[in-house]
């Protein structure tokens, strides 16, 4: 409270409605990270008094992380920072009134007459016990409507969490002060629209950044930049949302492995790097309203070389009673030569094709991680209705000391009117895995995986057979 005596001036710095209404040269800058974190830099012109004063900021983000707050202004030192989050509610109000006097207005249910008395609040445990004159009563025990009137709101109860900073200023006068802090509730990701032209082996790609504000606060007219990259953030161990995120990341990595995801990048990115991350500044000042998602375009590339492949991945030697459908994968590179020279921040790729009427139709979506420039990207859009695989484990034999021999048959059917090729990848090879015989020559992308390109005629079928031996 008022620890500095009479000399203290309380400067209510730009209260409530002032935030963001680009007033007094107030300038907001937002740096938003991929997941639930943003750096807010709030430059305000403040009228400092010489000596000690207390600045109260009621209008900072409702999801502020108070331990990250800094205030910088010329000739101003910070004495202490306070973040009060004891919220004003009827119950809190009553608790703070224990030992104090309140006014009790009782309305007679029969005739509506009001009687006003002064009462002392004795306790607020499972009910409010009052002392009125010599009597002890429980508030509203008789069921009669009873109003309670308090003199004032206690100092540290507030309608919303409030940041206050006690400063020592060496001179009076108006100066710019920069308030900066981290807040949760803001995040962004990328959404890509890929218009795939299969016959031409090309795609048009638009990238949008999608910004979401659930911080509880509207940021008006802010200079906004987005950071792509995985920054390390210390989280509480019981942050279940973060735990969920980690699990999801782990799952995604497994999925990616299963899909031969992407080959690493080898081109220097055109994007301005900030240390090890990439920065996407929004071109204009923008208002990021509470409960809003906002999209701004950042990539618009045409004629990117792309092709469609059919894939099937088996992680083990097994029989399927019903045929499985091949995965449809659109593959393209974000290289300058391929027509898309840009890093791709993590997000969703939604693939569309043009139907016979020339209008786009959605054909599938998938996530990508941050992709450095010059990488090859594979996006699984779905499953081919007409290209199926039926795996059969024909024979499984013991082949010595912790070794087995597996004979597999993959029956690939193609009901399309064009010949096609299916890439079959077989996992499950362990120690000293080797091919004994095969109907089509395989390649070995890594020690534990075999890969075949199986050609299938239009309306035809091809049988891939092979026998492998592996330790386990």
């Amino acid at each position, binding site marked *: 409270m008022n620890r500095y005596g009479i000399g203290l001036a309380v400067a209510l710095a730009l209260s*409530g409605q002032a935030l963001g209404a680009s007033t007094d040269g107030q300038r907001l800058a937002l740096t938003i990270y991929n997941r639930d974190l943003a750096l807010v830099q709030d430059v305000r012109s403040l009228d400092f008094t010489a000596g000690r004063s207390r600045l109260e900021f009621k209008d900072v983000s409702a999801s502020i992380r108070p331990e990250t707050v800094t205030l910088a202004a010329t000739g101003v030192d910070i004495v202490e920072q306070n973040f009060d989050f004891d919220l004003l509610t009827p119950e809190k109000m009553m608790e703070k009134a224990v030992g104090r006097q309140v006014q009790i207005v009782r309305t007679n249910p029969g005739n509506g007459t009001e009687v006003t008395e002064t009462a002392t609040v004795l306790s607020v445990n499972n009910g409010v016990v009052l002392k009125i004159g010599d009597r002890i009563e429980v508030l509203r025990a008789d069921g009669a409507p009873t*109003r309670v009137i308090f003199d004032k709101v206690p100092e540290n109860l507030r309608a919303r969490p409030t940041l206050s900073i006690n400063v020592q200023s060496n001179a009076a006068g108006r100066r710019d002060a920069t308030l900066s802090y981290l807040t949760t509730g803001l995040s962004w990701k990328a959404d890509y629209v890929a218009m795939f032209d299969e016959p031409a082996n090309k795609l048009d790609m638009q990238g949008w950044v999608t910004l979401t504000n659930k911080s509880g606060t509207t940021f008006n007219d802010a200079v906004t930049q987005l950071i792509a990259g995985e920054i390390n953030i210390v989280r509480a161990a019981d942050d279940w949302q973060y735990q969920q995120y980690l699990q999801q990341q782990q799952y995604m990595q497994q999925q990616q492995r299963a899909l031969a995801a992407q080959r690493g990048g080898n081109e220097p990115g055109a994007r301005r790097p900030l240390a090890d991350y990439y920065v996407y500044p929004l071109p204009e000042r923008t208002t990021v309203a509470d409960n809003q998602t906002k999209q701004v375009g950042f990539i618009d590339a045409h004629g990117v070389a792309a092709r469609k492949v059919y894939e099937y991945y088996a992680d083990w030697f097994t029989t399927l009673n019903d045929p499985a459908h091949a995965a449809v994968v659109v593959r393209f590179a974000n290289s300058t030569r391929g027509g898309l020279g840009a890093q791709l921040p993590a997000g969703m790729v939604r693939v569309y094709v043009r139907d016979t009427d020339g209008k786009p139709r959605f054909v599938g979506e998938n996530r990508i991680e941050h992709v450095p420039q010059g990488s090859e990207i594979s996006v699984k859009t779905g499953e081919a209705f007409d290209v199926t695989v039926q795996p059969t484990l024909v024979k499984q034999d013991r082949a010595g000391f912790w070794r087995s021999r597996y004979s597999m048959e993959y029956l690939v059917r193609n009901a399309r009117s064009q010949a096609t090729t299916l890439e079959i990848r077989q996992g499950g090879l362990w120690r000293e895995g080797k091919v004994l015989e095969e109907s089509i020559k395989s390649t070995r992308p890594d020690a534990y995986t075999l890969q075949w390109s199986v050609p299938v005629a239009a309306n035809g079928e091809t049988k891939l057979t092979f026998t492998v031996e592996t330790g386990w």
Partner: protein
Amino acid sequence: MRCAALALLLLPLAATADVVSSAPDAVRVTLYGNLAANATYDEEGGYAEYEADDAGLVMVSETRTIDLPAGTSRVVFLGVADAIVPQTAGIEGLSAAIIESNFDYDLLTPGAVIAKSHGERVRLVRTDRATGRTTDREAIVRSGPQGVMLEIDGKIEALGCSGLSEKLIFPRLPPGLAEEPQLSMTVRATTAGRHTVQLSYLALGMGWSADYIVRIGPDDRTLDLTGWITLVNRSGTTFANTPAEVVAGQLARDAEETQPPGPTQISEGASCWPIGQFAKLIPMFRRAELARTRGFIQETPLAVTTLDEVAVTGSRVPFQAQMRELGDYKLYAVPEPTTIAARQSKQVSFLAESRVPFTRLYMFKVDEDSIMNENDFVPRPATTLLRLQNKESEGLGKPLPRGVISVMESGTAGAALAGQDRLDDTPVGLPIELTLGKAMDVWVEPRVTAEETIEGEDHDEQRVSVEVRLANDKPVPITLEYRQPSTGEGFRIVRESRSHTFKEGEVRWTFRLRPGGRAVLRYSMQRPTERDDDT
């Protein structure tokens, strides 16, 4: 002083003019998801495979006319589907730069009004329950909505804690709160003009499923197959007179990312000081519950699974949905524009094939665990299968989107349901095997006659000998297939009374049994004993 000056500065914020596109001129919907409309659960009660699609997916393409002024303007699109996924919204045909696209879902709720009215002057009206007299006081909102404190004449009081009839009257709506979520785009045009644009986006709450009805002919050799597309609209949006199409095939989906953003709705939850023991009889004014019953706290519209209405449009063949290719999927266009009302399902035909030849056969798949160490032998019923080929030469040859097939058998007393099965997406050329149920008069009785250990040089093997009796008590000849799964390392048949075929990981013996016919099968299978010490 300063506060007044600041309030004035608030005004110039509305720098861009709003252009309101109140409704689309035309809409086309493309439904995905193969939504399971008729909840038919399989025996295990599992429906997991279809669960991810339960919310459905629809691509909405709207034609809209927009009159744009030169310069920067904000175009507000009203009348979009209520379960829109805003980040998928795209526009074609607009010759103006899109600066940004926004979706605002700060909704007008009682709680939001209070949260945005802190420090505002409101009126508190109290009605005396006895006399009906009202008092009207000016008040300033000091906190809320989780417990509202008011300042009245410089003193502090709580709202809704006194037991009096109290209400707040607000002089005006706080800005930025909308009745429904709003999609808008900020665009910059060099010249003023009229634009005809295509606004397209994905939305949830709509989907479709394929349903098939098979009628077996009296000759028991051919069947009639009809296929129905069931369009389901679980959303609150009605699409009137709309060209509709459905996409068959499995799309890669991300149900977590592709969903409407959830508005953070602030409920006006009451938090009063505790009302004592003596006061237990006083009904507590539970505002949160009240809000819920009044519908302020909305359940997601997708949670509504009951359908108000099921409409069946025409069963005549001429109005059949036409199939065409869409990438690696099949697209079926509903023949005429149709109205898909909110919470409605609707069926159109897409397939009608008559006299498709099929074979009926009976199958028994032995479960090794259930016959080993078992001496209480009872005849077990065989399973009835219908086998057909999805080929043009076999009277079919049509892509069959996955769905539920109901098989009707024609009997003396009319048609009867013989069973249901689930069909996967089936391209042309694949065999189809439908499982109908257990046959009453075809039975199989397998028993283990010997279990031996054969000692070998480097490992031992286990040999199991089985004798199977097979019987047909039907008045017609049948084909019966006995299936032994070939599982485990080194599995092989070492002796058999009749030669087998090997298919889909199973050893199969086929019998042709005349009416009243009996047969016996004997076989021995062998595999190495469990690997425990491989030295």
